[in-house]
């Protein structure tokens, strides 16, 4: 069973820009194309197993993984992601 401690918001960075259509593929996480040619995948995961499942899906796309960060809920909840880079 999961505990609340495991749940949280995460940001995963990969190299390359992912079209927003892939959001469904990544369980409804939000995708943001950054100006440095990377994509941030942000959203809530229910537990560690879900996070690993997400990372596996990423692995299967072959997109190089740059970072995985747990977001501080107090900051990110109130901070929408304004930078939307259209390449």
């Amino acid at each position, binding site marked *: 069973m999961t505990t609340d401690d495991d749940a949280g918001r995460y940001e995963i960075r990969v190299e*390359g*820009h*992912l*079209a927003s*259509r*892939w959001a*469904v*593929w990544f369980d409804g996480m939000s995708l943001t*194309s950054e100006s440095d*040619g990377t*994509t941030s995948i942000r959203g809530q995961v229910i537990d560690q197993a879900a996070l690993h499942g997400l990372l596996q899906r990423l*692995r*299967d*796309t*072959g*997109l190089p993984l740059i970072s995985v960060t747990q977001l501080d809920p107090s900051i990110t909840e109130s901070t929408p992601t304004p930078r939307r880079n259209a*390449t």
Partner: protein
Amino acid sequence: MAGPLLQTKFHVPRRRRALVSRPRLSDRLTRGTESALTLVSAPAGFGKTTLLTEWLADWLAAAPAAERSAAWLSLDERDNDPALFWRYLVAALDSVAPGVGASALALLQSTQPAAEAVLATLLNDLGAVPNDVVLVLDDFHVIEAGEVQDGMAFLLEHLPPQIRLVIAGRADPALPLARLRGRGELVEVRAADLRFSPDEAAAYLNGVMNLALTPQDVEALEGRTEGWIAALQLAALSIQGRDDVAGFIAGFAGDDRYIVDYLAQEVLQRQPGSVRDFLLQTSILGRLNGPLCDAVTGQGGGRATLEALDRGNLFLVPLDDQRQWYRYHHLFADVLQAHLMEEQPDRIRELHRRASDWYEQRGERSEAVHHALAGEDFERAADLVEPTIPELRRNRQEATLRSWLEALPDELFRVRPVLTVGLVSSLMVRGDFDGVEARLRQAEKWLDPTADRTGMAVVDEDAFRTLPTAIAMYRAGTALVRGDVAGTMTHARRALDLADEDDHLARGAPAALLGLAYWTSGDLDESSRLYVDAMVSLTRAGYHSDVLGGSIALADMRLAQGRLREAMGIFERGLQRAERSQPVLRGAADMHVGLSHVLRERGDLDAARMHLQASSELGEHVGLPQNRYRWRVAMARIREAGGDLVGALDLLDEAERVYVGDFSPDVRPVPALRARVLVAQGRWAEALDWAQERGLSVDDQLSYLREFEHVTLARALSARYTAERDEWSIREAAALLERLRSAAEDGGRTGSLLDVLVVQSLASQAQGDLPAALISLRRALTLAEPEGYVRIFVDEGAPMASLLRVVAKEGDPGSYVRRLLAAFDGTKVRKPVSPEVIDPLSPREIDVLRLLGTDLDGPDIARRLFVSLNTVRTHTKNIYAKLGVNNRRSAVRRAEDLGLMVRPR
């Protein structure tokens, strides 16, 4: 599916039409055949499978067909069920070395699949494979089950040198890679090696794909894709037939988008609408063939479309040589599914539903369930799973069943009693007893004949009919685990009452549980009666390995009853049954240990020792979990009989370390045996410390479970009296013994009674009360003679010898007492037989040797052992050399002298 294996998983992918030759990688892979493991580890689309296919074809062609063969296994998520994984792996090896997996497969189907037992059997057979074999496990990254990974590590550690493992996947496997690297036993091909170099990219684009690109274009593509082969392939497909190649490349190279997505979209856009729809809709399928695609798209011509896609090189991977089954390249499938989810999200369920229907009609239930779950059609999935439960259970695919049941939403179980009880058994197999009772109640409420059954869903009517039995049975099991003897009895009896006369499994299991409960409470007459019934039922139900486990329990009961001969008969019959079966049933090794125990008790130490040796020769995988400890206890008692008390203590310490509990009560605990040896050494003070730690006292209420410990306490007290002459000790010991004696008499436990009488006799002797000592002893002798007990007297040494001499002098001693007295002498002068003097035979050689003692000829022996005649000849030659003989008859005779031919007596 529980039955047949998917042949497409064994298919070695065929060589593509034209390829870029990659000698540096092929050379490295060929070097890999000298190492234990070759690892090809890189993300999707790096050409792992293609490289291996290409190299395998060359490697096989470089030597005569008889010398080399290759097996292939493509893994998928479902192979995380250990039972299924090992079946596939063994079958893959069996396909290139026929017969090599026969024993392991039989073991997988006949008994609880202890991975190491199956693998030890497989390794034993692999050792005899004469040629070089490469086994490729493709897509190994899908394997997450720890049990499978542990098994693979074990396999890797023991693989014979002619068998080579190649593992390919997108993530490094959880195997001891660092250790293998350190020993130079690992060859790796990784992403950096697999990327196309600029030269290879040029050879591919201009050579294989004939695109006539300029060096600048090639450089741009190579740079943008970083040599990622799948991306280059997609790029080549996008470029084909395009006018403005340079413009396309420039646009692509200057773009940050996910390459595969970008390019796949380019390719998709250029397909006719019908093909594009076909690709999206069939992307939900793990495997594709014409009829299945027709069913899913609701249109015809699936097969023709697949062939066209294959010709167009559109990321279709053939799964057989007949061009029937294909799959999409994983990367491409992901892109297609992402498009499908975006464009037609409402259709996805329907597509899965159609796939599920198609598979169900073809009887492929596993695939049907998979698609029902993927389409979130849980009602349908439940309907499909329920009737499959008995079959999955018979095939020991507990992991598969659990993964299905856990994928179903909880509320569904409320109206499905059969499925709920299936879930209960699945939880209990995993040792999870917590939610069991609540679940059983949930199922049970539908059984009340007055209940309103509207809303209830039952597919398997037979299972529903026998549900009351199953529920009572699971309750009995949980009660036994909690140590609730009364509860076990109540529920097991109810299960037995409810079970049909002819439902052998439904009768056997509760009878055994009830027997265990009576055994625990010390009522051996009742427990053994029930156990005999249980064994008869289980034999009829075909659960032979479980019968062997049960016969150990039954023999233990007979020993407590002092029925040595019956115990021996049980072990002998068990051994015959185990050896009749091919492969030898798990539990055969335990039968030898049991025989050893009885034979030692009857004074035949040589035979007892031979049976222990026979047990080790069979190997641990032919032993049940407790055999490791039982073997050590048996050997300790033999050492004790030989006067080697220090050696006996060492073995008992080991036995304690490897002890594992099971449902049977632990009526002769190893620490108590250890305390007895301490007393024999004169270290009664340490034995009394043990008794104190165990919380034993002379005033305890007696129970069968602690009987052996209490007799041990009395021995220690009696020894203290002998040394220190303190009246308290002997008074307390005598009182305790008197109570123990009457309890053993009341419970009909003659074996326990003998134990008590011997201690009573020695205690009286220590007090100088010879008449009392003789009364106890004579009674013991009367009870022991018909069963042929020897060591229970002789192990007591000099004090017992002098008492027996008095018995002999006082009247006609009879042959029994004379035999006992002779045994005291024998203990001193006994020469050890030492099979160690010869170069030890391997277990396989012993198998051959035993068959040389029969009427079978060479080819018959080869067939029996699933090896070639040549292998049998090699073994025979080695056996002759080791035994120093030159023909079959003398080999058998010599082996008999050495006790190597040991057979049930």
